[in-house]
């Protein structure tokens, strides 16, 4: 069972209160982009076994979108933060480095 703290209403939300929104921090490719980049934006997802950044919506609660950093293998949650964030906040990155010292790279993939 997964419980995420919604950063908007502050509630501990059971997974059954949430709607999943897929990988977070994707960069939208607009009308001027290359076909390959646009295809990748639409379809290619990292789907890691391990640390992952995901969008979730507190569908049965306050209704807001937020982002969660968690481990897909152990369900350990490193933190949640506002959806209006283009990359993971430093405190989340620090928490992940502390818990997963061997992991390279600070963000998404």
């Amino acid at each position, binding site marked *: 069972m997964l419980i995420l703290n919604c950063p*908007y209403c*502050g*509630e501990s939300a*059971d997974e059954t209160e949430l709607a999943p929104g897929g990988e977070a921090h994707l960069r939208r490719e607009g009308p001027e982009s290359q076909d390959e980049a646009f295809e990748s934006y639409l379809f290619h997802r990292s789907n890691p076994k391990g640390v992952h950044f995901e969008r979730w919506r507190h569908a*049965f609660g*306050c*209704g*807001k979108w937020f982002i969660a950093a968690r481990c897909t293998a152990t369900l350990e949650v490193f933190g949640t933060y506002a959806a209006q964030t283009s990359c993971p906040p430093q405190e989340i990155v620090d928490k992940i480095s502390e818990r997963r010292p061997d992991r390279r790279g600070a963000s998404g993939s």
Partner: protein
Amino acid sequence: MRKRQFDGGIARIEDVEGYGMVSLRVSAETALRRARPQRGQACWEGETTTLWMSPDELLFLCPRAEVAGLLRDLAQDLAGVHHLAADVSSARALFDVRGRNALEVMAKLMPIDLSPQKFSPGRVRRSRIGQVAAAIWMQQDGALRVICFRSVADYVWDLMVDAARPGTEVGAF
């Protein structure tokens, strides 16, 4: 609709009719000329209950006859401020659940912490009951109030009555 009442189980449940409801969407920073509840809380002013629904959403419950006046006041207070105030009185059904096991009855149906240490008067929580969205709060007298969309009110009623059947105490709290 006929007002339903369930008694004789481990909690008393009844329909509450005659309430008006006004939904207000306005930024969290906007000052209102009325009490604004803290995050996750309800507050009371006269006969009006105000529920915190999300950072930019409040729900007012008041006697139905006062809805027009409330909308007029909000329009006046928020003139020039981006907001949306709507009469949603018919959207939701309201229930009263009370008795020593009221929290336990609702805890059977909702994925939230309803232990008495955590859930006290003034607390509001939006979540789900069974398969549908619902909100619950505790009145100042310790009774619980539950709202859900009117289209699923019979479903919620049946679930609550089933969870309050005689002899179904769990003793979790």
